[in-house]
C-alpha cells in the first residue's frame, strides 16, 4: 500500500486523502448494512420469511373488509403506514400489491438502505415513501390519514406502549386496521426467543430483544380496547429454524399476530374509487342485509 505522503507530492493533499478514505469507509459500511438487511439467507432471513405470513394476513384481511379488488393489485387505493420499517422488508411487498406505503423508522441508516433498495424499481419508487422518524413525530401531520397501520416486530421495542397505541389511533382512519406481530412474555418465549434464537442458533442478532419488554397478548388486547380499538383476531405463529419458515399455530406462547380495528363509523373502509356498475348493483342488492 502506497504511503499517503507520496500522494502529497503528486498534488493531492493529505486532508483530501483522509476525507476520500472516510467517504469510502462510509460507503462500504452502508453497503454492508444494505447487504445485511436484504440478504434473504442472512441475518434477517427470519424476517424475510415472515413475509409469507404477514403479507397474506394483511392482504386477505383488507380484501375481506370489502375492498374493491383490482386484478393484479389487491391493495390498490389502500394507504399503509409501516412503523419500524427497517430496511423496507415488509413495505416493498405491500407496495407491489398496490398499496401506497409510508415507512418510518427512527434509525436514519435504515431509511437510507430502504430508499436505495426501492430506487431501482420504478413502480415501488413511486408507491413507497420512507421517512426517518418516530410515530409520535408524525402524528400531527398525519391525523386520520391511513387505512392500515402495520407494527411488525415493533411493540416489543417501544418504551411507552399505551402512548404508541394512542398515536396509532390518531393517524388511522375510523374503521381502519392495525396489524401487530410481536413476542409473548412467557417462560417459553424466554427460552426460545432469547436463549435459543439469540444466543444459540443466531436466528436473531444478539441483544435484539429485552424479555422484560415482551408483550403478552392479553395486555395488548386490554390496552387496545381501552384506547379506541376493537380486537378482531389474535393468532399464534411459530418459526421453524430447520426449514426457515413460519406457520400459524394454536398457541400464542411465543410469537403472535393480531388484527384490531379502530372503532368509529362502519366496519368497512370507505371506497376511494367510484364503483363500477356491477359493484354498485351488488352493493344496493345487499344494502338491506348489511349490519
Amino acid at each position, binding site marked *: 500500500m502506497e504511503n499517503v505522503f507520496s500522494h502529497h507530492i503528486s498534488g493531492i493533499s493529505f486532508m483530501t486523502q483522509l476525507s476520500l478514505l472516510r467517504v469510502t469507509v462510509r460507503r462500504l459500511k*452502508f*453497503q454492508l448494512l*444494505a447487504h445485511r438487511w436484504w440478504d*434473504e439467507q442472512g441475518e434477517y432471513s427470519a424476517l424475510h420469511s415472515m413475509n409469507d405470513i404477514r*403479507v397474506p394476513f394483511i392482504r386477505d384481511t383488507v380484501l375481506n373488509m370489502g375492498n374493491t379488488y383490482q386484478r393484479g393489485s389487491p391493495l390498490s387505493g389502500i394507504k399503509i403506514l409501516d412503523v419500524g420499517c427497517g430496511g423496507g422488508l415488509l413495505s416493498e*411487498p405491500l407496495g407491489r*400489491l398496490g398499496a401506497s406505503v409510508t415507512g418510518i423508522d427512527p434509525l436514519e441508516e435504515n431509511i437510507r438502505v430502504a430508499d436505495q433498495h426501492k430506487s*431501482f424499481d420504478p413502480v415501488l419508487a413511486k408507491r413507497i415513501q420512507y421517512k426517518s422518524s418516530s410515530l409520535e413525530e408524525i402524528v400531527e401531520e398525519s391525523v386520520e390519514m391511513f387505512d392500515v397501520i402495520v407494527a411488525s416486530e415493533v411493540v416489543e421495542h417501544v418504551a411507552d406502549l399505551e402512548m404508541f397505541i394512542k398515536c396509532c389511533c390518531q393517524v388511522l382512519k375510523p374503521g381502519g386496521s392495525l396489524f401487530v406481530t410481536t413476542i409473548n412474555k412467557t417462560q417459553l418465549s424466554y427460552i426460545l426467543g432469547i436463549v435459543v434464537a439469540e444466543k444459540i442458533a443466531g436466528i436473531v442478532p444478539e441483544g435484539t430483544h429485552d424479555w422484560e419488554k415482551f408483550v403478552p397478548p392479553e395486555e395488548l388486547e386490554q390496552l387496545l380496547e381501552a384506547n379506541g380499538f376493537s380486537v378482531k383476531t389474535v393468532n399464534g405463529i411459530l418459526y421453524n429454524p430447520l426449514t426457515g419458515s413460519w406457520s400459524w399455530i394454536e398457541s400464542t406462547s411465543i410469537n403472535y399476530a393480531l388484527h384490531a380495528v379502530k372503532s368509529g363509523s362502519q366496519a368497512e373502509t370507505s371506497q376511494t374509487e367510484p364503483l363500477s356498475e356491477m359493484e354498485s348493483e351488488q352493493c344496493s342488492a345487499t344494502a338491506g342485509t348489511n349490519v
Partner: protein
Amino acid sequence: MQVWDACSEAIITFEKDDLDDMGYIVENDVIMSALTKQLDAVADRVEVFYGSRAVGYTWPLPSHSSDTSPWVQIELADGRRLQTKLLIGADGHNSVVRKEAEIQNIEHQYDQSAVVATLHLSEATDNNVAWQRFLPTGPIALLPWSNVNHSDFIDAAGAMFRSALSLLKPSGTAVRQLPPSVAEVDPESRAVFPLGMGHAAQYVRHRVALIGDAAHRVHPLAGQGVNLGFGDIACLAHHLSAAAFNGQDLGSLKHLLRFETERQRHNVSLIAAIDLLKRLYSTSLSPLVLLRTWGLQATNALPPIKEQIMAFASK
C-alpha cells in the same frame, strides 16, 4: 397405440376405451397460430419483439451494492437495452441464456439423427392409431396427423432413408392391427435433426429460470419432449403467480427453487427412463432382447400397469 419389437414377436398396445383421447398430435404451425392469437389478446400486458436477438447479458451482483442495478440487463442486436427482474431462458437445447449464466449442462450426443417426413397413406383409415417399432438402429414411428390420410413419419434409423417401410408390415401370428400402407412421401416435407440428451445441473439462478429444452433435452422415442416443456411452463406460471400474489420480487430464488425441485423430481425420472429405453432398444444382444421382450409382453398382459403408463403420458 401399437408398439412392437424388431427382434422378437413382443408387442404392446395401448387403448383407451372411454371417450377421452389418449393424446393429441398437433402440428407446430397450429400451436404457433393459437399462441399468436392469445398474445394479441393480452397485448396490453405482453410485448413481443419479433425478429430480434439478445446479444449480451449482464447479471446482477450477489451483493446489493449501491451503484449497479440489481436486475438483469439485456442488450439486443439493434442496440436496445432491457432490464428485468426475471429472465426466462426458453431458447432450446443450445441455450445461450444457460451458457451465459454458466449453468453446467450434462449432455450426451446419441450418434443418431432423426428423419421426419409427411406421408400420404394409400387407403382411407380412421387414422387414429400411432404405430411404433423398435429396430436395432432406432425406432420408427408413424403418427396420425389429419383425416386426409397424412401421417408424420419419424425414422430415427440413422441418416439413411431405408426401405424400412417394408419392416412396418408385421410378421407372426399375434392378434394385432395392421398399420396402413404408405402411398407416397410428401415432397419438401423431409427434415433431419441430430439427437442428444441433455440436462441442466440447475434450472434456476437468482433472477434466471430455464424451461423446455434449455433445461432438458430428450430422445423423441417417447414423444415427451415438448410435453416436458409444457409441464415446466404450467409449474413456473403457478409458482410465479403465487409469489406475485404475496407481493414478492419475481426474481427471488425462494420460489424459483420450489419450481426447480418440483420439475426436477418429475423430469429426471422420465428423462432417465427414456434414455434407458433408447439404450435397451438399440441393442440386438440376446439377453437384453429377451429381457425387453419379456418386459413388453408382461406389461401388455397387465392392464393396471398400462393404465398407469397411459395416465402418466397423457398428463
